[in-house]
């Protein structure tokens, strides 16, 4: 067992950074058959990702005020995995509908991006501020903790972008990559939850012994 939960939080923050950018890149692939691959399709995807993350940061920070723990942190990953599933399963139906109702591919791709990505990416956005809260022990070093955290998760994002665009799309189908990400998110979340439960058990035991 680790002395602190920090290595777990850093690993998971790296993973979420990786996955956010991998999904963003695959977004271009997902939308292209319906809306083309023009610059405005990328504009839609990037805007919606930024917006979703912004909402996620706000919510994650708010939730971190109340008894922050690794159990809830793990739950974010599991929820992100669950909200990503419909993108894989019903993405095409959604885009079919948007395509039928919106003639302009700019607004079509924008609306489709909201439907496909808003929920999972907003939930993934909650992870960043919550990570800071789990890592910070006092306000004096909070800036440094946030710095290291951004470093780790942005490094994950860089790697996610690079691996996806250089290799993953060459080796696997888009849906296989997305489903693997669902699996990785679930596994990450469950690990955090299990670790947290064991930690609680141990604490209870230590307290009992102390008495």
């Amino acid at each position: 067992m680790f002395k602190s939960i920090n290595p777990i939080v850093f690993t998971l923050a790296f993973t979420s950074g990786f996955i956010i950018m991998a999904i963003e890149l695959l977004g271009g692939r997902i939308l292209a058959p319906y809306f083309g691959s023009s610059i405005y399709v990328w504009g839609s995807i990037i805007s919606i990702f930024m917006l979703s993350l912004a909402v996620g940061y706000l919510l994650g920070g708010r939730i971190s005020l109340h008894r922050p723990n690794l159990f809830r942190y793990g739950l974010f990953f599991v929820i992100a995995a669950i909200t990503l599933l419909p993108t894989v399963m019903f993405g095409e139906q959604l885009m079919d509908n948007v395509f039928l109702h919106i003639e302009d591919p700019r607004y079509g791709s924008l609306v489709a991006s909201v439907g496909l990505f808003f929920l999972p990416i907003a939930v993934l956005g909650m992870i960043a501020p919550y990570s800071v809260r789990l890592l910070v022990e006092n306000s004096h070093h909070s800036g440094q903790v946030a710095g290291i955290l951004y470093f780790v998760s942005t490094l994950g994002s860089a790697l996610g972008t690079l691996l996806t665009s250089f290799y993953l799309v060459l080796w696997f189908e888009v849906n296989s990559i997305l489903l693997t990400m669902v699996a990785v998110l679930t596994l990450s979340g469950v690990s955090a939850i299990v670790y947290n439960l064991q930690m609680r058990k141990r604490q209870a035991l230590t307290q009992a012994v102390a008495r």
Partner: protein
Amino acid sequence: MNRLWTELKVLLLITLSLNALHANGETVIHEEKSLYRNIEVKETETRRCLVFAVKRGDRNQTCINLSRPERVVFPYVRMTFAGLLLNPEPASILIVGLGGGTIPTVLSEILPKTTIHVVEIDEAVVRVAKKYFAFEETDRMKVFVQDARVYIKRALLRKQHYDLVILDAFTGDYIPEHLMTQEFLEEVRGLLLDDGVLVANTFSTSKLYGHESATYSIVFGEFFNFKMPITGNRVIVTQVGADSVLPETKLLQDRANRLSGPFTRYAVNIDDFPRYMRRVKDWDTNVRPLTDQFSPANLLRGD
């Protein structure tokens, strides 16, 4: 101050003339950055070319012979007219990718009653084709500035159909990957009427050759794998329909002989085509076809 000014003027002049005059007497007569690419129109004494400029080796998209502008300069452009050997009188044609407009211009002259629709993603290309390559829109010939995938999906919804579809959307440097998948070709097939003809200018080298061939095979079955010794391009020519049997070489040759008259002034040696239109599958048939789920065309091209 004055001297500095003179020096600046000299420097400016040198830069301007260097820009205007390339090594072999080429002059750049038009230059613009569009949303998708850098476009140049270059001219020598005999030729004017539309160039999609990149640092490493420019790609000529279309060239015209200035003294005989009706002549088709590039062999692969000539080869796209092979579609007429499968259906000599299409009532409607869809062309994906405008370039300098050579293909639609020649077709509209050869087939004066045919309706021609062209889809081009880049508005700047349409402007340049009109201004420098004598491309004209008429009642029978219309250009739609749109992504081809989007255009074709909408055309299917409108239940629109064509007798001949010509795919020529690839610039050589970048492939729009969503226009090279099985799903896309199925949509194109949906646009074709019975006995409709498909012509596609494709890549003939790199790993992509096998993947692309496999993709066309899945959607259209057998096709003419049309290659000529003078060019590295491969043009796919095929026909859809109930019997889905490709015409015999003799029939192609008969039609080619009839068409060779009208095509002479365009320097299109169409009567040479049939003997190069083979059905040999000279690619690795075990490779994966490209789909919307798996379409790394640009990466495969690098290999």
